């Protein structure tokens, strides 16, 4: 679903500024102040930061609170509940009194959310999974944006054949349903990874899903960047710079880039939200993060077999995804409102 696509309204960083501007304040400072005043957006930002901090403290939780290794299957482990010793994998606990059922949520230090089918602590895995999901989500969004800025700038600045070529290439990637494109690339690379020149990425490396996701979303960022470059190019200050004999490099880096970067800043939180959702979907289809590594998507996948007996295995990572993506979407809206002068109209009437 084109979560990002629908929000890619062009941002005109040189448009009218809100009336409450003191003379001498740059547009960035104005936007920053506007964002700080937006309580909803700040709360969302705080929630996102909290989730990131929580996830990256996963090893602390596993070592010092739950005392467990969430990547080691422990089929014979026991834990203590209300002073009684209990098996983590209980025999015949299911509806048919057959097979093994992992322990449910204990709501205490270890096995807080219960165990998965291999006796691993779900709460600790959700935190570790968050680390992976966030790293891939943020990493791929940033890589994607960097590549997209280069493509978008080159296409918009040089125009002509270069623009035609890059834009058509973007059209082709754009034409693919994102999951199909990701599936195609992932199936080919999944069993043996990829080696290009000196760079070798193994099939189980987290770089693989990161790069796949980064590639498939390039057009979503490159298009608005190109659009912004096209409009900035026509401005008088660029003409003035050309008249002063500025080199292309100077034009690109000093005149145009600072004026189109706001497009990327507006898109970035929404991109991260989208890439996190994509990562979870690919991992759920088992073509994203590969075991033993865990991500929110793989944990939901693990939880599918236990859905009716131990639903928390699937519920918990899903809630984390919803909270993360929601906070990023709200934050993204706030940043857009702060940087996009047209939002003035929207807030006032």
């Amino acid at each position: 679903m084109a979560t990002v696509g629908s929000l890619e309204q062009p941002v005109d960083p040189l448009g009218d500024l809100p009336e409450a501007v003191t003379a001498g304040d740059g547009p960035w400072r104005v936007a920053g102040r506007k964002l700080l005043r937006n309580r909803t957006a700040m709360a969302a930002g705080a929630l996102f930061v909290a989730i990131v901090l929580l996830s990256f403290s996963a090893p602390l939780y596993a070592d010092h609170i739950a005392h467990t290794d969430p990547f080691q299957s422990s089929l014979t482990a026991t834990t203590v509940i209300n002073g009684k010793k209990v098996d983590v994998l209980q025999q015949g606990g299911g509806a048919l009194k057959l097979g093994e059922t992992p322990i449910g949520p204990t709501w205490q230090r270890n096995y807080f959310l219960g165990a998965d089918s291999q006796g691993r602590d779900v709460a600790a895995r959700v935190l570790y999974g968050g680390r992976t999901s966030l790293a891939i989500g943020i990493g791929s969004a940033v890589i994607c944006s960097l590549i997209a800025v280069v493509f978008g700038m080159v296409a918009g600045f040089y125009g002509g054949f270069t623009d035609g070529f890059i834009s058509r290439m973007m059209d082709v990637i754009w034409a693919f349903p994102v999951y199909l494109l990701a599936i195609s690339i992932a199936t080919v690379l999944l069993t043996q990874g990829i080696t290009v020149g000196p760079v070798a990425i193994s099939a189980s490396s987290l770089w693989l899903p990161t790069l796949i996701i980064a590639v498939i979303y390039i057009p979503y960022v490159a298009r608005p960047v190109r659009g912004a470059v096209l409009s900035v190019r026509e401005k008088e200050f660029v003409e003035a710079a050309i008249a002063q004999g500025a080199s292309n490099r100077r034009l690109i880096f000093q005149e145009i880039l600072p004026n189109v970067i706001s497009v990327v800043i507006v898109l970035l939180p929404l991109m991260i939200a989208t890439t996190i959702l994509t990562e979870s979907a690919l991992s759920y289809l088992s073509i994203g993060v590969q075991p033993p590594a865990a991500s929110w998507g793989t944990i939901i996948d693990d939880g599918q077999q236990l859905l009716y007996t131990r639903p928390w295995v699937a519920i918990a990572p899903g809630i984390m995804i919803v909270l993360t993506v929601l906070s990023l979407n709200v934050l993204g809206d706030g940043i857009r409102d702060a940087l996009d002068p047209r939002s003035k109209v929207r807030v006032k009437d």
Partner: protein
Amino acid sequence: MLAFVIRRMLATVVVLFAITVLVFVIFFHTPGVDPARKLAGRNPSPETIAAIKHQYGLDRPLPVQYVILMRKMFISRDLTSYSNQGQKVMPEILAATPVTLSLVFGAAVIWVAMALLMGVAAALLRGSVFDPILMVLALIGISMPVFWLGEMANLVTQSRYHDSFLFSWVPPLGYTPLTSDPAMWFKHLLIPWLVLSVGYIGLYARVLRADLLEVGSEDYIRTARAKGLTERRVLIRHSLRTSMITFISLFGLDFGVLVGGGALLVEVVFGLPGVGLLTYQSLTSLDLPVIMATVIYGAFFVVVANALVDITYAWLDPRVRTA
């Protein structure tokens, strides 16, 4: 208009060609990947690999390989699956298509109706508490992974509350064709329809609301108000009509993407044997010919849907034709 249609069609053909080339490159020429081995599925025998090499002309020049693949895909349509004992791929895809269409079509009806309702309601109730509440709901809908929502729906309707009067009608996961039992078809699909539509309802309601408010500051709206029309009439007869242009073009694209393979996750969660589930099963068995075919057919569908949307758009809004 005719000139626009012709230009758009030519562009479509170019994109379709580029897509086949891209798929060809991904599957046959990713560095360090042997396509014959990949096509042969898991643990192939050396004979199979040799046969595939010959069949796909992998020892011949690139353009020849490309032509052979395209011939297999579109002309002789005899792409066969190796993991699945020589099962022909095309009939499999054709058999799965009605399921995907049923799923996407029903969900589309729900999401368009609900999004119109929510978007218009939010715009009408601007300034009251309902507008932000509706928009937060929309945002939550957008932020939920659809496969997780599907699992939660299964948890509630298949297990936890299945015995309550609310969900006792829900049949076990699966699919019944419309032609054999319409009532059962409906029962099987209702929950998947709702789950698939949630994200789109949120997205479309937000887009529609923003659009309605933006259109609201146009001159002709002021004129309509000045004529003394009621707010409601201005909104529905004047604003909504203009906003529908964005809405419809967005709809065409998303519908195309969903039929083209985007409904995959929902099909997997609910065990609906559509094209998406077929792709997923081929993924688990690494059945490359099937994946290749579903990807190309999916992408084709999306590109053609895009072209149709553009042409409709140009028909609705003459300004686009010259662009």
